[in-house]
């Protein structure tokens, strides 16, 4: 067993020192009645070669984006990942260490978290951000819990344009807490119904949740929504599933958001079949003691030198147990590092350029799709298309063209069974965008 460093000989000596004769004796506190008597039904150890062969054979059974042009988005985006990221996160110094409980031995991780928090603040234009949460959906749930703590009000307004899986996770987290979720419909633009929102807002409202760009790809009028919300004494929680959009769009913090949560996967994290992802959480300074999750803070050592520590731990489960702001312990540390490296690598110019490429390439498709678009609202890199055929069927055809098509909306919205949510990123080649448009519209693209 190459992962064990004690030899049989040493085992014997150690057992002798301990004063037992067989290693089994060390397990004697386990009553016989619950002790395993027969061997587990597990395979024999496999060699490295066999394991690599096996996983490669599994890989062959997936339609991966290195071999297919993929137009799926919906909360997980196929973006460029600079090579240097893996060089950084493959350093054992970063990936094998624990949460930085001992700051003197963890300044690398702590400084990186501090930088990550700052970058998220810059990106969202918020005042504070935490060290990460599991993913965008649970970050939203945590934001709702925080809004509950802050407002003690029982109602959340949630648009139907929120990512349906986020909606479900929110439901799971709030299920037992005696709150209501009221749904706000969307209008023709694809944005949420502001009139409906106005009417629904009252002093029962803990928070208005709004995703922008929303699940249908449409950019919401955040300024107006946060204004309405604030007027009703409610908080506004802005959800961002496509974090790259923050490279270009006015950040929620400048538009009045109280809490901004979202998914950072776009920022350097491989699609990875949906995980690990990166939940981010930002809010205003005045709310920081109600935030969930870890926070790195700057301080000094006993000689006055700058250093970083985990701080405001009295919010956390390991100190406050049942009074904690959340149960979260392990978060998505390495993904936060990835995100920090990604943002630092792209930097001011690169992030903008990448975001613009997404906008322009998606707009190129929008133009090709013309009348087939379901919504009139402006979008970043996603859009909903009405199809003449069943979208699932269309996707099957697309496979023959080396294309993994968009998301058939019928999967989540029975009344949208004829629609497909399509995402275009910088990774999609123009030929494939054209081919997609042709198959979706039946009209040949002249190029």
């Amino acid at each position: 067993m190459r992962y064990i460093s004690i030899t049989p000989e040493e085992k014997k000596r150690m057992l002798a020192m301990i004063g037992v004769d067989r290693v089994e004796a060390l397990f004697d506190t386990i009553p016989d009645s619950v002790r395993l008597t027969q061997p587990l039904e597990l395979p024999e150890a496999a060699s490295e070669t066999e394991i690599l062969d096996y996983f490669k054979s599994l890989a062959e059974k997936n339609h991966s984006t290195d071999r297919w042009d993929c137009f799926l988005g919906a909360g997980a985006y196929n973006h460029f990942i600079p090579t240097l990221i893996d060089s950084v996160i493959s350093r054992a110094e970063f990936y094998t260490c624990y949460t930085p409980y001992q700051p003197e031995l963890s300044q690398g991780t702590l400084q990186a978290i501090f930088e990550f928090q700052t970058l998220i603040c810059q990106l969202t234009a918020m005042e504070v951000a935490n060290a990460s949460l599991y993913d965008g959906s649970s970050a939203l749930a945590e934001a709702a819990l925080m809004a509950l703590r802050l407002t003690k009000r029982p109602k959340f307004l949630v648009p139907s344009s929120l990512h349906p899986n986020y909606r479900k996770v929110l439901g799971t987290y709030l299920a037992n807490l005696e709150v209501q979720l009221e749904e706000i419909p969307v209008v023709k633009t694809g944005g949420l119904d502001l009139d409906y929102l106005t009417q629904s807002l009252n002093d029962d409202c803990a928070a208005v949740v709004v995703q922008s760009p929303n699940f249908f790809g449409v950019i919401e009028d955040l300024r107006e929504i946060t204004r309405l919300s604030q007027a009703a004494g409610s908080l506004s929680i802005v959800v961002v599933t496509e974090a790259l959009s923050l490279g270009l769009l006015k950040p929620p913090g400048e538009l009045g958001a109280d809490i901004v949560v979202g998914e950072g996967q776009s920022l350097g994290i491989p699609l990875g079949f949906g995980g690990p992802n990166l939940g981010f959480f930002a809010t205003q300074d005045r709310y920081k003691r109600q935030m969930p999750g870890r926070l790195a803070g700057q301080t000094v050592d006993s000689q006055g030198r700058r250093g970083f520590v985990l701080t405001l731990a009295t919010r956390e489960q390991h100190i406050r147990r049942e009074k904690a702001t959340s149960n979260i312990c392990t978060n998505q540390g390495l993904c936060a590092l990835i995100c920090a490296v990604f943002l630092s690598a792209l930097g001011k110019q690169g992030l903008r350029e990448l975001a613009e490429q997404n906008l322009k390439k998606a707009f190129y498709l929008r133009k090709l799709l013309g009348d087939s678009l379901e919504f009139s609202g402006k979008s970043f890199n996603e859009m909903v298309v009405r199809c003449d055929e069943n979208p699932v069927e269309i996707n099957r055809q697309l496979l023959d063209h080396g294309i993994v098509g968009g998301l058939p909306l019928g999967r989540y919205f029975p009344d949208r069974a004829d629609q497909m949510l399509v995402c275009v990123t910088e990774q999609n080649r123009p030929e494939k965008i054209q081919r997609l448009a042709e198959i979706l519209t039946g009209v040949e693209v002249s190029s």
Partner: protein
Amino acid sequence: MSRTFKAFQLEEPLIFEKSSPGKSAYSLPPLDVEDLPVEEILDPEDLRDEISGFPEVSEVELISHYTRMSTWNYHVDLGMYPLGSCTMKYNPKLNERVSRIPGIGLTHPLQEDEQSQGNLEILFRLQEYLKQLTGMDDVSLQPAGGAQGELAGILMIRAYHLERRHPRRYVLIPDSAHGTNPASAIMAGYEAIPIPSDPQGRIDVKALAEKMTEEVACLMLTNPNTMGIFETYIEEISRIVHAKGGLIYMDGANFNALMGYARPGDMDIDVLHLNLHKTFSTPHGGGGPGSGPVACKKILSPYLPLPAIRQEGSMYRLDNDAPGSIGRLHAFYGNFGMAVRALCYILTCGREGLKELSEVAVLNANYIRCRLEDHYDLPYSTPTLHEVVFTDSRQNKSGVTTLDIAKRLIDHGFHPPTTYFPLIVRGALMIEPTESYSKEELDAFIEAMIAISQEATENPEKVTGAPADAKLTRLDEVRAARHPVLRWLPDGASSSA
């Protein structure tokens, strides 16, 4: 040869402090469609201004930035990391490689099942193995961490009771439990009632019997518990809880003690979570991503999070159809990448290997215990499994505390054990060696601990003034919390309370 030497390392400012206009570390292909001005596509008022203070560095600087910072971390590849309850074992390089196979990692979660058969097989197979290892009937890999696994389990218990028309109000939690346990119970809408430990460090069965009522939804048990002690009276505990219609949740964070020796499923456990980032060798990543699968008995299967992964003939598929389910906990399927690594680990170790891991983990902990018990106070004489908890009571006499001992270990070249946890042990020093390290490494740790106990009497300032040999001396945590500086600001100013 002494374990350590002192040498220079390089300082490094914040990335923002290195930044200057005109540097960059990226390259993008030219835009390959029509290049319209952004303003023709979006309303100018929807566009953000330049992000002030955002980094601008070259690739060379970026790499040296993170490389230098990395050298300030202690880590598993460097040496023993005996952080109790965290199971800081070796993270195999093969896991990392397998998880980076493009056809596995570069896959979109919303592809049709037929397009993801490889990945679904990974999930399915891992579930099956975890069922076998734990003796449970069903598994969901969705929880993205141990705490989320706990939440899932408690929500399932609540759903179970709800279906029986009575959600109940309380969750019983031993006072030695991890902080996530009560926090998770609360998030599921319960109140937590602590159960004291008995003089042997186990759950006080009498107290349990007293608190156990029909208002109690479940007992949240950690086994072996956070002292490394097996809950020997598990059967009696189970009878007490089940007799009142309650269920038993097991925090399986300490499963590294049990593989091949005992299965929660054989102990009347109803639901548990595992930490793939502990027992199954996935890296801790400086704080995640982890993975906290939840495993349950048949009675709780209907409530498992969605989607489930099922095998139908030779096909795997995602199943969202379970009306009783607690629902989703994650936008997709949890931290899939950790599942890949865990499966790789199980296949690498195999049946015998996994058992040997637990065996050696327990052997190592007992070896440390036996060699240190003359030097440090052992609060419980009860036999322990994979970890051992000492206290600082002997060293207290010369004014030396657990914190001091921990910090002094740094100077001896070791990461400190977990400190002040479990809470019921005053000044706890919780040591979990795992199975990974050599006897030489264990001995060096033991000798460092013994040396510190001597220093505590002979030269206590050396211990209370530690660390002297780390990047920084002790950090002012009070100041950090009183005047929080949680981000860098361009003008050197800082957000503060």
